[in-house]
């Protein structure tokens, strides 16, 4: 917590550890401190929050590559006087890493699907299409924008709206059913269903 003069009033043991603060830093201005996390223009940001009362949030990284979500909000006393600002640092490295892995997996899946010549799509449990490959879009004569995040039954392709198809996919999702294949016969995937 910083006073309106941008001097440190107090900090938690976690802040002491993560930001490499020491007890004698209390009373010092953040302009005079070398924090382990470099936040360009930190004092200006804090002053702005105190002046405007509008909290700020940003993501910053320390010298060891640890990412933090930094939230700066005005510090109000119980009688609503502004006495400075509170800075909350939350370690988001794991979330950042997981998001990166997820994106990598998605990119890999998309790359694999892209070289397969059979129509392929990935759906969520509500049967909304999350991803299709080029063969899928081409087979159903639809663009990616017409497909992604839309329910499979609302693509205007009757074969994809067949109750048997929905039942089959729902059973695949739930692990029910005794077959992993369903034969669907049609002439044209975007016009006619034979049966």
């Amino acid at each position: 917590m910083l006073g309106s003069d941008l001097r440190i009033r107090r900090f938690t043991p976690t802040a002491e550890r993560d930001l490499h603060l020491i007890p004698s830093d209390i009373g010092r201005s953040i302009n005079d401190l070398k924090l382990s996390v470099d936040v360009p223009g930190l004092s200006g940001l804090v002053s702005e929050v105190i002046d405007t009362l509008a909290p700020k949030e940003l993501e910053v990284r320390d010298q060891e590559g640890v990412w933090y979500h930094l939230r700066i909000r005005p510090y109000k006393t119980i009688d609503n006087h502004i006495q400075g600002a509170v800075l909350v640092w939350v370690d988001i490295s794991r979330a950042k890493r997981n998001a990166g892995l997820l994106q990598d997996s998605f990119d890999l899946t998309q790359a694999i699907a892209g070289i397969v010549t059979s129509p392929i799509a990935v759906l969520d449990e509500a049967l909304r299409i999350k991803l299709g490959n080029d063969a899928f879009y081409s087979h159903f004569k639809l663009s990616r924008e017409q497909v992604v995040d839309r329910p499979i039954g609302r693509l205007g392709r009757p074969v994809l709206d067949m109750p048997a198809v929905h039942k089959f996919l729902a059973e695949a999702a739930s692990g029910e059913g005794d077959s992993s294949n369903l034969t669907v016969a049609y002439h044209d995937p975007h016009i006619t269903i034979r049966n």
Partner: protein
Amino acid sequence: MVLKARAVDQGDGGGKLILMALHPAKPAGKTSN
């Protein structure tokens, strides 16, 4: 066409994803599994 589907658990409460693929059906007269 033959529709194939497999469910993939995303873990950590992320629900499941369903992978679906369409393949040409084998011509009549051929044996099929």
